[in-house]
């Protein structure tokens, strides 16, 4: 599976970043980054695209589950830490749009696919981009009508989008899922449930839909119903992140701490570092008055996340029950300290909350997901329109930009792709994949200085990225400079990922530095790894002749 594609050649798919963190719904997980694997051979393009798509899903899914992108690894909003039945943002405020596609995004179309037909029934969906109303309309009485009007415009726009999507793809489960998600984002859970039920008729094994339906049930206080829905989701996808955690919430809400403990144990099996599940485990043991077990669970939670406010409250409580008064006092003090910080963050968030901006973010996510549906049907032109509209509506939307950039790259529109990857790098300055992809675009555009800088930054952020090392090596080799460094980079790429394309790169570097014997040895290794590759064999023969 871990094969790479030569991204310096035309037709390659971009790389998606995969923060290798467990989707902890709350707390502050420790985070490490990995650069996504890729492929170097164009004939493996489709596979590479699929990998990228899946990883996009992983990234987006992580965000959706309440995690944060790595550069935002500060204390999370207080809302994510709320009580057992409150995994949602605080009441009255819309849940910010998630970036998750409701299914694994399908592979991006190969670059040589024709653009989709201009006779698109949704051609006129696009409207003029909005002005920056959010900034111009502070929450005062006199701006209410203007804000209502702007919101109404967005809702009408999104109504057209959803109507058109369902008309165009009436039998596509993703389309119904997307429309349901949009309805949910607008606070219409009844409508969302109807759409998701239709989605389930078309695709009965959509665990994600059962999961979403469970959330609505929980919001209505229907814990038994939520439990049933989440159990159904688990039947379909037993290792779906967060499901056991959610199930535990529903069970605890019904006064079933023993069953909640069993669910949390399974969640912890799947994700040992899920701090919040350890915290909830403590809560369940506390309900059962098994104080020592509760204490251990809370302690594990704060080991994983030393700033988990609520876990200190649990510790203070359980220590008090155990007669450990000094420890209880200490934990209370720590809790109070963190709570004060949380309150500060909460206050800032409340004051700064911009409803119109939140609505635009919700609608932008709807466009992003709608674009993905269109992409699955190879209506790339329409998908691009949707993603562009999403980008207009939400200047921080990552998903639509990733999709757009991938589309541009696949269609040999490197300048546009580069521009978008540069935007993404600004939005997520610690995400190495954006620099890597920018490097690939720049290299293709022969902008070697830009490419060099981008690859170097990617290596800095992800020192174990074979792709970035290989990319930078190729830039140097093509420019015929820094050849010794190029060889060292190629050597590192081989060490990190001993696959045939990397051996070929090393051979090329050795050749350029006059070390034909090592070059031959590297190419022989490449042939050994990919014996069916005639190109490699020809290179081996060429080197032998030169020796």
């Amino acid at each position: 599976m871990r094969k790479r594609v030569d991204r310096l050649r035309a037709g390659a798919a971009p790389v998606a970043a995969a923060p290798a963190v467990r989707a902890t719904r709350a707390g502050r997980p420790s985070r490490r980054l990995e650069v996504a694997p890729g492929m170097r051979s164009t004939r493996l393009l489709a596979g590479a695209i699929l990998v990228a798509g899946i990883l996009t899903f992983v990234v987006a899914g992580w965000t959706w589950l309440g995690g944060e992108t790595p550069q935002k690894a500060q204390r999370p909003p207080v809302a994510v830490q709320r009580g057992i039945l409150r995994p949602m943002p605080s009441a009255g405020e819309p849940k910010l749009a998630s970036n998750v596609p409701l299914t694994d995004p399908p592979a991006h179309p190969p670059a040589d696919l024709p653009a989709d037909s201009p006779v698109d029934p949704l051609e006129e969906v696009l409207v003029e981009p909005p002005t920056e109303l959010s900034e111009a309309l502070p929450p005062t009485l006199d701006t209410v009508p203007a804000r209502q009007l702007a919101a109404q415009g967005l809702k009408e726009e999104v109504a057209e989008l959803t109507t058109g999507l369902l008309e165009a793809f009436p039998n596509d489960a993703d389309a119904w899922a997307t429309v349901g998600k949009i309805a949910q984002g607008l606070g219409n859970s009844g409508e969302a449930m109807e759409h998701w039920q239709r989605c389930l008729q078309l695709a009965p094994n959509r665990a994600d839909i059962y999961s979403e339906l469970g959330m609505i049930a929980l919001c209505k206080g229907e814990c038994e119903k939520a439990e049933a829905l989440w159990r159904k989701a688990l039947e379909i996808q037993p290792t779906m992140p967060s499901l056991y955690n959610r199930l535990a919430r529903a069970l605890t809400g019904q006064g079933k701490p023993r069953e909640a403990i069993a669910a949390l144990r399974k969640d912890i099996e799947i994700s040992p570092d899920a701090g919040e599940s350890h915290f909830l485990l403590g809560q369940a043991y506390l309900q059962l008055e098994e104080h020592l077990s509760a204490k251990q669970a809370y302690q594990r939670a704060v080991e994983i996340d030393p700033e988990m406010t609520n876990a200190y409250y649990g510790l203070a409580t359980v220590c008090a029950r155990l007669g450990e008064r000094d420890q209880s006092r200490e934990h209370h003090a720590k809790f109070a300290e963190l709570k004060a910080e949380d309150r500060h963050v909460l206050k800032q968030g409340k004051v700064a909350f911009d409803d119109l901006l939140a609505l635009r973010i919700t609608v932008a996510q709807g466009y992003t997901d709608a674009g993905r549906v269109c992409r699955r049907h190879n209506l790339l032109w329409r998908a691009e329109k949707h993603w562009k509209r999403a980008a207009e509506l939400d200047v921080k939307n990552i998903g639509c930009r990733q999709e757009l950039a991938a589309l541009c790259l696949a269609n040999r529109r490197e300048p546009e792709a580069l521009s978008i990857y540069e935007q993404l790098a600004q939005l997520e300055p610690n995400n190495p994949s954006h620099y890597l992809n920018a490097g690939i675009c720049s290299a293709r555009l022969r902008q070697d200085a830009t490419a060099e800088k981008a690859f170097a930054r990617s290596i800095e952020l992800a020192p174990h990225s074979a792709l970035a090392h290989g990319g930078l090596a190729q830039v140097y080799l093509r420019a015929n400079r820094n050849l010794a460094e190029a060889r060292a980079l190629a050597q590192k790429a081989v060490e990190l990922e001993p696959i045939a394309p990397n051996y070929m790169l090393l051979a090329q570097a050795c050749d350029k530095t006059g070390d034909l014997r090592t070059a031959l040895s590297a190419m022989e290794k490449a042939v050994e790894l990919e014996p069916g590759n005639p190109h490699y064999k020809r290179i081996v023969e060429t080197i032998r002749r030169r020796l």
Partner: protein
Amino acid sequence: MAVPSRVASWCAVVGALWGLVPCGARAQCLIQLHDVTTQAGIGFRHTDGGSGRRYIVESVTSGLALFDYDGDGDVDVYFLNGAPLRGTQVAAPPKNTLYRNDGAWKFTDVTDQAGVGDTGFGLGVAAADYDNDGDQDLYINNYGPNVLYRNNGDGTFTDVSRQAGVANGNEVGATTSFLDIDGDGDLDLFCANYLLFTYENHVARTSRGIPKYPGPMDHPPVPNNLFRNNGDGTFTDVSGQSGIGEHEGWGMGGVCADYDDDGDTDIFVANDVAGNFLFQNDGHGHFEEVGLTAGFAYDLHGDEHGSMGVACGDYDNDGRLDFYQTCYARELATLYRNLGGGVLEDVTLKTNAGAGTFPYVTWGPGLIDLDNDGDRDLFVACGHLQDNVELFDDTTAYLVRNVVLMNTGDGRFINVSDQCGDGLQVQLSSRGVGFDDLDDDGDLDVVILNSRREPTVLRNDSPRSNHWIQIRLRGVKSNRDGVGARVKVVAGDRTQVDEVHSGHGYQSHYGTRLHFGLGLRTRIDRIEVRWIGGGVDVVENAPVDRVITIAEGSNPASLRGSPAR
């Protein structure tokens, strides 16, 4: 779980937990509450003073008081009302309204005769005999100047706010309570304040583009106030020196009760989206805020709630007062069990005491024995504060029915809202609620103030097979109404406690005479009264099914009783 024998329909209603009972399984339960609003002749209609600008104070008004204003032995009803806010035009200013209980479920509007038609923006109310002259006075905590109505003893009142020194500026009031902070025999006055609101600091919020009321954090918090009774009809503001004024919050409901059983009265304040306050009294009128360490500030998880009201009562009959706090939507109304030693524990999940409340904003709480079976049930007034919430969040609603949770006697509650009569089918947006025996038939009736609408009056028609007693206290050395006195009733295998509180729940007042359900027990072995100041009176072998009065210091205690009508 064992099936309590006394709960005939338990099997039918157990499925109602979390609202999932199948229709066919529903059956009548022992608590029966019927809507008698129309026949009661109560024409009051609440106004929140709004004009569509959505000032935050509109959303949290108002409370009500159930008290005997004319000393005729039955319970009268006083509704607070809002007042026109900026931008609101009215032909005649709305006013608070007093209804005299004429018996047989007939009430007469006597507001003007009594002189209690305050036109301020009413929020909280408490009734008690602050001047120890034998009649109950009224204090109203307004947005704007507060009002103290001194009862003249002849069915009329005099506004003595200025002379008494308790007008309290221009705060946005909330709950208010009379209590004796220092055991000196007269009642002092606690005023919770909500937040700092001015027309200028109003924040016009929207949700998904729909206008909505701002939240409490859009306004700065404020400290609460405490006034010491000087014993001469005047009060002194002791907020600072008592320690009360050191803490700023967003006060809503509350109760003043002796949670640590040390003989003095402590103060509970429910804060909106902030940790609740528990002011522990040192017995001399100085208070320390101990909400966090006592376990009342936050719920089980360490989360603050959008807290609304607080009710007080011993739900598990272990001799300690427990507390029930209502809150915002997507939070469970929370039951705090008193573990003793000054520690409370959130037992909501263990006891199912939050059943049916999660989707709704909950306001007036009641921890009262609705079926006279000797344990306390829960009544929760519900209704969202956003009158258009369905437009941006359809998982909840503005107009909803209230919730009744029946105590099964084994430490748990079950949601019987669907089974306890047409009184629970009314769907309005309720705020303050009070409980007392309006028809003197030995069970607790319910009066609910509904925002922007007529109130709801519920007659308790639960089967009368169970016995009861109601106890009225007459303080002599301590305050005349016995506020703060702890009463223990021992009947056979059951011991119950309660305390007299003035001003509690959600900005309301009720329960000056204490009510105890006795189940099938036909004799009371012992009644013990511990007065503020430490004196104890004991009555033995008391009859059941009657209202009795116990006067302080009479040994053996004088006992005057009257059977039920």
